[in-house]
């Protein structure tokens, strides 16, 4: 039989095979930085970035589900759980997260085109690829240190990107605000992580959660609660949940539109994934969740956060005239919806087998939210021009006549954001509400899940007001300025088309993606074959 040291060695030596696509992405980013000083051309940089992304996709595709098999093979014939030993864990969410990160990478390269010039193309795309690699890693790192590194691989390029394309007062304000608050949240996160490490004596995420849940069988450790509250606060900044949302409107309004599209999706995406992993909701520890509703108030904290976030975002979005500011508040509101799934998952006992585990609904909604929000930003980028900048909602007047195709695409995204049937937004909201209604009615949460679903439904109705206002302006108002005939970059429109296809396809036939999200978040994991969902 293999000894523990053998297994550890094999896992360590094999870890590099589980991150090859990310290595390719970071390598390409390094090449892009070198290219930026040797041969500063926009086409060359975009070409190199696309080659890097395609290579990463090819590697991911060729690996397939072999990763999981190889991962379990390391512990075959031993009683050890690889989740408690490995630094890189390719089971569970990992594959889905990597596909999502790579797909968003292609969309963001398309969006980058109108904003980059020859002199900053290499830096822009290099930073973008590092961000993509970081967000792909979030799903698979299984160690506090590498988790923090992966989070910083997303944060630090964002600071550069915010300041890179344009240099006006708005951009400066956005960059400084985001920078200061982001490093503050990273500091809070590290403080929380240091407590978790001090309590459990390990940085391995799986082992850490196992120790915490075993200890919480006896009594709750106050220090662990302080630590997890700090971690939630830090991730709350990334998902722009109230009360950590103050930067969002200013950053969205001031920042370059292509980068704002990235900020609207990638930090939320990694924030939610990191949150479900640190709360142990994906690969559940044997002794149950470390922070259960019956013993700790953590799910209640998240419950309050969800309600306040969605209400705050929706009510303040009603008052906005600036289009990007409105989308910022809409993004805050949607974070509130997505928190529902996490609250529900925190309250599920380990032996229950509901149709929806909560986390899968959140993941589905994240994908839907990414498609519709990034699509809306792509269209703002497409319509924006020097002569006719798109700042306020009134600037959209008359687009229904002058740009019928793009206006129709915007209508699709807005309808999806409202949650109209036949769009991904509806399917996502439906899954979230159903998961909240199906959750067991037990003390101490009692009816709170259902209250949450009702509040969310009321909020969805409030949201319809400001989204429909945009649709009304596009189709019913006369344009404020004559329509410019300047040649536009087609790539953002192409990206918006892709997002719209996704929005409609996942709305009409949600199983396309819902199957993957369910398989990625099994409540009960079958060793050796994590793709099989044990749901009875």
């Amino acid at each position, binding site marked *: 039989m293999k000894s523990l040291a053998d297994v550890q060695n094999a896992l360590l030596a094999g870890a590099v095979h589980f991150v090859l696509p990310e290595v390719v992405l970071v390598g390409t980013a*390094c090449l892009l*930085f070198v290219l930026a*000083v*040797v041969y500063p051309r926009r086409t060359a940089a975009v070409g190199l970035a696309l080659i890097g992304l395609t290579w990463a996709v090819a590697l991911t595709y060729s690996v397939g589900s072999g990763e999981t098999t190889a991962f379990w093979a390391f512990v075959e014939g031993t009683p050890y759980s690889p989740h408690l030993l490995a630094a890189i864990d390719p089971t569970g969410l990992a594959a889905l997260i990597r596909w999502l990160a790579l797909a968003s990478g292609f969309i963001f390269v398309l969006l980058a085109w109108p904003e980059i010039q020859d002199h900053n193309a290499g830096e822009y795309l290099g930073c973008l690829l590092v961000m993509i690699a970081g967000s792909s890693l979030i799903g698979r790192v299984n160690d506090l240190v590498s988790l923090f590194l992966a989070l910083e691989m997303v944060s630090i390029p964002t600071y550069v990107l915010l300041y890179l394309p344009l240099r006006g007062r708005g951009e400066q304000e956005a960059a400084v605000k985001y920078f200061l608050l982001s490093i503050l949240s990273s500091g809070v996160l590290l403080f929380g992580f240091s407590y978790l490490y001090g309590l459990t004596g390990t940085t391995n995420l799986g082992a850490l959660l196992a120790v915490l849940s075993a*200890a919480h069988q*006896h009594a709750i*450790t106050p220090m662990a609660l302080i630590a997890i509250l700090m971690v939630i606060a830090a991730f709350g900044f990334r998902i722009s949940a109230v009360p950590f949302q103050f930067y969002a409107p200013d950053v969205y309004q001031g920042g370059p539109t292509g980068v704002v599209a990235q900020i609207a999706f990638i930090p939320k995406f990694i924030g939610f994934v990191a949150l479900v992993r640190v709360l142990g909701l994906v690969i559940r520890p044997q002794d149950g969740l470390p922070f259960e509703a019956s013993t700790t108030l953590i799910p209640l904290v998240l419950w309050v956060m969800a309600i306040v976030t969605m209400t705050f975002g929706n009510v303040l979005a009603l008052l906005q005239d600036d289009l990007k500011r409105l989308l910022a508040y809409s993004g805050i509101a949607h974070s509130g919806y997505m928190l529902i799934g996490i609250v529900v998952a925190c309250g599920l006992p380990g032996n229950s087998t509901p149709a929806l585990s909560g986390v899968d609904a959140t993941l589905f909604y994240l994908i839907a939210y990414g498609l519709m929000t990034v699509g809306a930003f792509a269209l703002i980028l497409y319509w924006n021009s020097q002569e006719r900048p798109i700042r306020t909602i009134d600037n959209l007047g008359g687009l229904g006549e002058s740009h019928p195709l793009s206006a129709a695409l915007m209508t699709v995204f807005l309808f999806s954001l409202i949650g109209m049937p036949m769009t991904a937004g509806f399917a996502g909201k439906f899954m979230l509400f159903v998961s909240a209604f199906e959750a067991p009615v037990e003390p101490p949460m009692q009816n709170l899940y259902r209250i949450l679903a009702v509040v969310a439904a009321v909020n969805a109705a409030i949201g319809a007001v400001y989204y429909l206002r945009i649709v009304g302006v596009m189709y019913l108002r006369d344009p404020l300025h004559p329509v410019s005939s300047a040649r536009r970059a087609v790539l953002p429109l192409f990206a918006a088309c892709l997002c719209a296809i996704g929005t409609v396809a996942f709305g009409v036939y949600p199983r396309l993606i819902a199957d993957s999200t369910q398989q990625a978040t099994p409540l009960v994991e079958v060793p050796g074959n994590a793709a099989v969902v044990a749901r009875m």
Partner: protein
Amino acid sequence: MTTPPPVLTPAGLEPAFDLATYYPMLIFAAVILSMACGIVAATHIPFLKPRNPTKTKQMPYESGMDPIGSARMQFDVKFYLIAILFLVFDVELLFLYPWAVSAYNTTGGWQSRYGDLVFLEILAFMVTLTLAYLYAWRKGVFQWR
């Protein structure tokens, strides 16, 4: 009397909190606090504190130069660039020292298993730093304009 259940601490599962363990700490804290308060009182309360000012004592730096101009001046950003580049190499050295000390020290036994892997990682680290250095060089960070 029932003993409370054990709790998780940095040293593993331990008996629950017992205030009596901390009495020496509390005495220590009380002594420190009374000393600090006593010093503050002796130097700041009008009738307790001694007061005989001389001209030298009133200077900002009693045994230094008088400051010239305002302290709120702006530094050129070039200094920061140089400082950041210095930090890059400083941190590189900081990383290399522990590795260099332990890599060829055969007592640990990990070298036979991970030696090559760690060596490659160090190489990759240095290559990345060299790329960053080349980037800074080509961007003209070293030209003192």
